[in-house]
């Protein structure tokens, strides 16, 4: 609270104490504004700067003319859009079906299935993509090999993962989880009477689904679609692994390409980033304006008890289809990936001693791995701990104080939502280059921590805010009137109620950091790279077997963190009083 906790007879003392808390909140606002806006300003500036960073600056429009005229950049832009739209269309249709089956019908094993999709949501995209490469690579992919053996009359591979549709496929399998997660609770809150009245008017189950349920769900479906579009526009590693080898670029891999080019093409990279960012900011602004701030609502365990739609004789056939989808989205790529780590040469079962531990032995003895593992732990823990304090403070100021700048703070904390990881990294890179006192951060793990803390800010702040909003003022006031000071109230009442959320925010921060590639790929050096970055370097640099081992390690870390989040997450949503 903004009010000082002391009785003050002297006017001078009172105004000083009021200013003290205001000063701290202004400082917080300043830090958030700098962290969010400075990188964007730097990126904009850099799009006009033609000379390399650190040199005498020369300004011009060359970067922008190249973005507008270079056909490869134009096609990357087009690929980004077309890939996003195609995947979203597929995941939306399949996701609605799955969410409805899981939440509104008498499908068996619904909880297990929902858990499977929940796991799919947390699986890092890179290991999943690697698993699919092992299965669907044009030459050595297992499925393609089997087809060639069993059906020798078919020419060439039946499906090559290195293709437009290969990218779509991997994204669909990784994207279904989040769709089901977002839509199932919304479906669950629908009054069953609305469905039943449609049935009593003579509509079939499927007719009811599309005529009644889907229109009623339109807002929730729209939220998840816009959310999905924004998220798919920031995809990076799948496109890098599957698209770049065949010359299929999206804007994010194009930016990386321009930066890793010799000499680096900073101005067009920045211009491309600014153009894309403008597009995303418009989308996010529209979504925020249209739908309000409903995206991160924490879902507590309670749902309506609604009567399930009977699937009848379709019950078991439908279950087998859903099971296949769930297993394909989770178990298949990861199992194949794990198997890959133990094969001398992947896909060759007929050579003597096809199984080996040598990849694990070699990788675990590699000092690079030890360093990357340490980096991952330092970066993820750092991002988690700093995130808890930082997001908690921001959310508290927004919800619980009368600070004049709190609306601005709220808005600023949202902006990173619109910034794809790769652009965040790019923007921070320039901020560091252009700010002399920040230059030592380059190549250190601290820069990665800063980037990740900014990146996860919208999620962390919204999660904390949603719980603080439920925490009615009266809970705090009851403590004050009972004789507790502000500090005693914070320690005795606010913090304990907030603790499960803060822990969840920390675990989510840890997990996002451990699996992140796009935000930190441009910021990490060989000294500061994390396991996820190392896996990418191995996989992209032709050491696929070693890459699989590192990828399995990241999956392990993320799954452990996700399970922890689920344990604590179950306690989110306490209603105060």
């Amino acid at each position, binding site marked *: 609270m903004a*009010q*000082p*906790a*002391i*009785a*003050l*007879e002297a*006017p001078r003392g*009172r105004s000083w104490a009021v200013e003290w808390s205001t000063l701290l909140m202004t400082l917080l606002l300043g830090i958030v504004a700098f962290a969010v806006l400075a990188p964007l300003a730097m990126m904009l500036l850099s799009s006009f700067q033609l000379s390399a960073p650190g040199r005498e600056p020369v300004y011009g429009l060359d970067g922008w003319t190249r973005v507008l005229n270079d056909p490869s950049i134009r096609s990357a832009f087009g690929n980004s859009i077309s890939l996003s739209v195609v995947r979203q269309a597929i995941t939306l249709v399949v996701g609605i079906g799955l969410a409805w089956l899981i939440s509104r019908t008498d499908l068996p094993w619904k909880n297990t299935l929902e858990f499977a999709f929940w796991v799919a949501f947390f699986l890092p995209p890179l290991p999943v993509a690697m698993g699919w490469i092992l299965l669907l690579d044009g030459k050595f992919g297992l499925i393609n090999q089997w087809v060639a053996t069993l059906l020798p009359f078919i020419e060439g591979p039946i499906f090559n993962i290195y293709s437009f549709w290969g990218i779509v496929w991997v994204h669909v399998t990784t994207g279904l989880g989040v769709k089901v997660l977002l839509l199932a609770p919304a479906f669950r809150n629908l009054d069953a009477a609305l469905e039943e009245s449609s049935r009593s008017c003579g509509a079939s189950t499927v007719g009811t689904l599309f005529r009644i349920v889907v229109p009623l769900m339109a807002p929730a479906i729209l939220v998840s679609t816009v959310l999905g579009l924004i998220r798919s526009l920031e995809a990076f590693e799948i496109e890098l692994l599957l698209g770049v080898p065949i010359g299929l670029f999206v804007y994010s891999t194009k930016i990386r390409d321009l930066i890793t080019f010799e000499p680096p093409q900073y101005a067009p990279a920045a211009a491309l980033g600014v153009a894309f960012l403008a597009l995303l900011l418009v989308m996010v602004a529209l979504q925020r304006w249209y739908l309000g701030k409903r995206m991160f609502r924490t879902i507590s365990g309670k749902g309506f008890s609604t009567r399930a739609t009977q699937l009848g004789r379709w019950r078991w056939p439908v279950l087998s289809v859903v099971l296949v989808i769930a297993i394909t989205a989770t178990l298949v790529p990861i199992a194949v990936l794990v198997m890959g780590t133990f094969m001398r040469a992947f896909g060759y079962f007929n050579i003597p001693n096809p199984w080996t531990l040598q990849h694990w032995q070699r990788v675990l003895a590699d000092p690079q791995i030890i360093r990357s593992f340490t980096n991952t732990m330092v970066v993820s823990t750092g991002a988690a701990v700093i995130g808890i304090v930082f997001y908690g403070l921001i959310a508290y100021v927004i919800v619980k104080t009368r600070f004049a700048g709190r609306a601005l703070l709220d808005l600023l904390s949202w902006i990173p939502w619109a910034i794809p990881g790769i652009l965040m990294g790019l923007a921070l890179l320039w901020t560091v280059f252009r700010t002399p006192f920040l230059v030592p951060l380059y190549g250190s793990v601290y820069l990665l921590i800063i980037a990740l803390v900014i990146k996860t800010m919208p999620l962390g702040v919204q999660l904390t805010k949603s719980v603080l909003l439920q925490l*009615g003022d*009266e*809970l705090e*006031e*009851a*403590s*004050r*009137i*009972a*004789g*507790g*000071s*502000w500090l*005693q109230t914070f320690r*005795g*009442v606010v913090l*304990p*109620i907030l603790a499960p959320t803060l822990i969840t925010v920390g675990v989510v921060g840890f997990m996002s950091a451990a699996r992140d590639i796009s935000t930190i790929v441009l910021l990490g050096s060989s000294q500061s790279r994390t396991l996820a970055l190392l896996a990418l370097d191995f996989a992209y640099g032709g050491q696929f077997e070693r890459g699989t081992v590192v990828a399995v390690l990241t999956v392990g870390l993320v799954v452990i963190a996700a399970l922890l989040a689920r344990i604590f997450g179950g306690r989110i949503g*306490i*209603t*105060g*009083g």
Partner: protein
Amino acid sequence: MTETSTVLRASGLVKRFGRVTAVDDVSFELGKGEVLTLLGPSGCGKTTTLRMVAGFERPDAGEIEIQGRVVVSTSRRVHIPPEKRGLGMVFQSYAIWPHMTVAENVGYPLKVRHVSKREIDERVEQTLAVVGLGGLGTRPALLLSGGQQQRVALARALVYSPSILLLDEPLSNLDAKLRGQMRIELKRLQQRLSVTVLFVTHDQIEAMSLSTRLAVMNQGRIEQIGSPRDLYEHPSTPFAEDFLGRVLRLHGTVVERSWSGVLVEVSGAGPRLAAEAADDSVAVGDEVMVGIRPEDLSVDPDGASTPQNTLRCPVEEVLYLGGECELVVRVGDGTHTLLVPRSFGAQVGQSVLIHLPPENLRVWAADPAPGLDHRSAAELTVAGQETA
């Protein structure tokens, strides 16, 4: 009330939110062992007044003294925070801390006062027994029912014997049956502990039954302050008359004024009514409104003669309610609803005689000021409707 027994003195309280003046020059005193109720519709400033006493809102002007100590004064630039005012408060939502047990909730005020562990346990158990929750100390607070949570909130507010107990609509979240029960218990508890209470409610039944004195608030001001009986029987403003209990309201014009009262001609060509009590400002020719409590009037079947102060009113609707009948009758320009015994036997198309004794009629200047006559005449019911 003597000087020494005054526990709370509020004077000239003003609170503005932006351009709205929520509390406008409110002053009152609260004596030891007294229950003072701030009663009014939502938005009348009663809760804001309570929150200024508690210390959650700072007044823009005015002064509050608790037991002779100035806790807030704009002229002296004093503001003592809530935790240093030694008050107890029960919130509308109860504000039970969900992460603590019942005993931890109740013991919290003692804990922050650094009372020893043993004494805390003792006093918590005593207080829980007082509110009827003995033995439930180890329960997680969230597993309690609404009524039990309310008792916990009460115990937590009483455990350190505060100088004043503040109650902010404590019964409004309970269902009707439980509310009646808690009202009785609250009254007994207050008398047993002779605790001083400042009570905020919009429910006139709670206010009437629990208070030593009542302050009816409207638009940030206290309209009238006094004992419940005083306010009910002798309201000094039409708002107080209207808010506290039910009232039948007629409109008319003053045709005669004498030392014993006024004569009013009811609009819509009705007969003339004599009334004993009237606003001093009312003069011949003025538009006025007339009010009477439904229990003070009598309804009779139509007869040949019409006595003094009696209106003959056509029945427009009869609704059979079981134990009684509801009559919708036309009086002058409007309709009114009356409850009569089922044996009354009125039928649509007939008329009834409504007798309005002059000593129970009050005449107010028909001041169209907003908030005074906040319901239109046609909506006014004589009986059978709770004032929300």
